[in-house]
């Protein structure tokens, strides 16, 4: 009997000692993390319909849709000298279609909201588009609630990673009659980014991160000021379209991360 009690006490002691980072249920301590997506056009909030954005050569732009897939979103941390990842989700579909006001734009669109193990993370990784692994799948592989049950380009064997749709005024006459429809997909247009910086998650303290897409930087290359000339092509429907490739190349530099 004494031996049994001793073993029981030992077990309790070991469990207690071994779970210093645990919550009341015995699992690792967690806190709520929300990842939002926001949109801007330079310094201005990205708003559908209501805002007019100045573009190059006197052109102007009004937006109706910005939509993007994000893949393999993971927090990064170090353990035993090795970089490890805490996967938040392997795929998310983000649409700014219903962002009608500056307040909507500031509030952002929820990408993922979940309990995450409490740690001192060192960064966040995000795939911009649909990862090649997932891009090899097709909508019938999923049920109709899954983000990848839609937006598939059968002829290109690819999901449409990004949609940029709106109207342009090309000649400064105040009429936005030129239709812009840039759809970007294909593994050649997939990229990933890693944001490095402390993301310290503490138990009981919900944390919010905001991933911003700057549309201006997608359309106008930061390094040399090269821009996609709407007068050249107002739509892109293929994986190799020059407009699609140009914009896809700019996307990694057009995203930024902030802690709220």
């Amino acid at each position, binding site marked *: 009997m004494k031996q049994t009690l001793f073993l029981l006490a030992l077990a309790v002691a070991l469990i207690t000692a071994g779970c210093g980072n645990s919550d009341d249920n015995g699992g690792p301590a967690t806190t709520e993390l929300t990842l939002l997506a926001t949109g801007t056009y330079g310094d201005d909030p990205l708003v559908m319909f209501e805002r007019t954005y100045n573009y190059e050569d006197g052109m102007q732009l009004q937006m109706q*849709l910005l939509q993007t897939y994000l893949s393999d979103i993971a927090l990064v941390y170090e353990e035993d000298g090795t970089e490890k990842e805490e996967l938040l989700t392997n795929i998310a579909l983000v649409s700014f279609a*219903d962002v009608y006001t500056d307040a909507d734009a500031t509030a952002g669109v929820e990408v993922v909201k979940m309990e995450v193990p409490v740690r001192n993370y060192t960064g966040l990784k995000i795939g911009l588009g649909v990862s090649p692994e997932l891009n090899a799948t097709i909508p*019938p592989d999923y049920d109709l609630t899954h983000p990848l049950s839609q937006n598939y380009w059968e002829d290109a064997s690819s999901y449409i990673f990004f949609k940029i*749709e709106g109207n342009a005024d090309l000649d400064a006459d105040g009429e936005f009659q030129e*239709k812009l*429809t840039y759809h970007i997909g294909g593994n050649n247009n997939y990229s990933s980014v890693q944001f490095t910086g402390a993301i310290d998650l503490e138990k009981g303290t919900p944390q919010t991160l905001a991933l911003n897409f700057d549309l201006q930087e997608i359309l106008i290359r930061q390094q040399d000021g090269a821009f996609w000339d709407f007068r050249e092509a107002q739509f892109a429907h293929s994986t190799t379209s020059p407009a699609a490739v140009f914009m896809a190349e700019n996307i990694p530099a057009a995203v930024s991360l902030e802690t709220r």
Partner: protein
Amino acid sequence: MNRFFGHITGAILLFALSNGCTQGTTADTAPAPLHGPEHFVQLVDYPENPYHPEKAALGQMLFFDPVLSKDSTLSCGSCHLPERAFTDGKAIAVGIENRKGTRNAPSLVNLAWVTTGLFWDGRSPTLEAQAVHPVINPNELGSDWPTVLQRLRAHPDYPRLFERAFGGPLEQEQVVNALAHFQRSLMSSESKYDSIMREEAAYTVLELRGKHIFFDSSEELPDGECGHCHTPPLFTDQTYMNNGVQEEQAPYTYTDPGRGAVTGAKYDNGRFRVPSLRNITLTAPYMHDGRFSTLQEVIEHYNSGGHPGPNVDPKIRKLHLSDEDKLALIAFLGTLTDTSFVRKLSDQKALLQ
């Protein structure tokens, strides 16, 4: 009297077809998940009204039974005829006492996949919620639910059939659940297009040209911009769109506000549900108000770029299609006709009448 016996005979046959081995008075109402074809996105269970084929068979009886209308002259099937892929051939649906509705009767094909609302404006979130309305709409069946329930409960067969299918009393909830079941079971996936996808058939030269125009998949041909919204295999992306079909009266103001009347967002004014193009050759006239009698007229509309407006979709633009391009598009659209679906449902309807 003949109609009455027809209904009963049809009901017996349909129940036999739906559950041929069931004996006794109570059906095995254990859910039997609804499955779609392999090349469609997978369906999810709907736990609020778990699927069972016997409930769908009962819903089919109700769907074609004029008992649901105020004067017992019309049924759901009066405006949703199987032989027309569940449309009626009229620009605007006509209800009891020849009352004109407000919009075109939409096709009811592949509704099991609809997740973004029913009706042209998406005002009902589910088939169950949708099924309540036509019964009481004064311009459709024009009845009221107490009357409908009274008639069904006094019917020589329905109480027993409801008891058998649902294992409980005959209430409004069971009636709309049965109707929703039947509509959820309407799957059309055996067109020539589907056969081609399975590599069991091939496009003609004209159809293939039309397919490339439809999906913007050839650099030698103009883009039709159709496949953005009419995405396969459902041939709808389930969104709401202003396709420039209505002339704007003032900014964001239209004769029929469509989706905007539901959401209250002015940006949704003039937007309507993107309909599936499956069986499109059978569902004329077209658009929410049936303004186009033929597919030629529809294509002329899109080729013209439609009426301008701030929320007209950017994909609606002048297409510069040649006459041959237009014929090719119509030829491709013809490959979406599923005669086996139409024939099967028409035959079943005949059994019920």
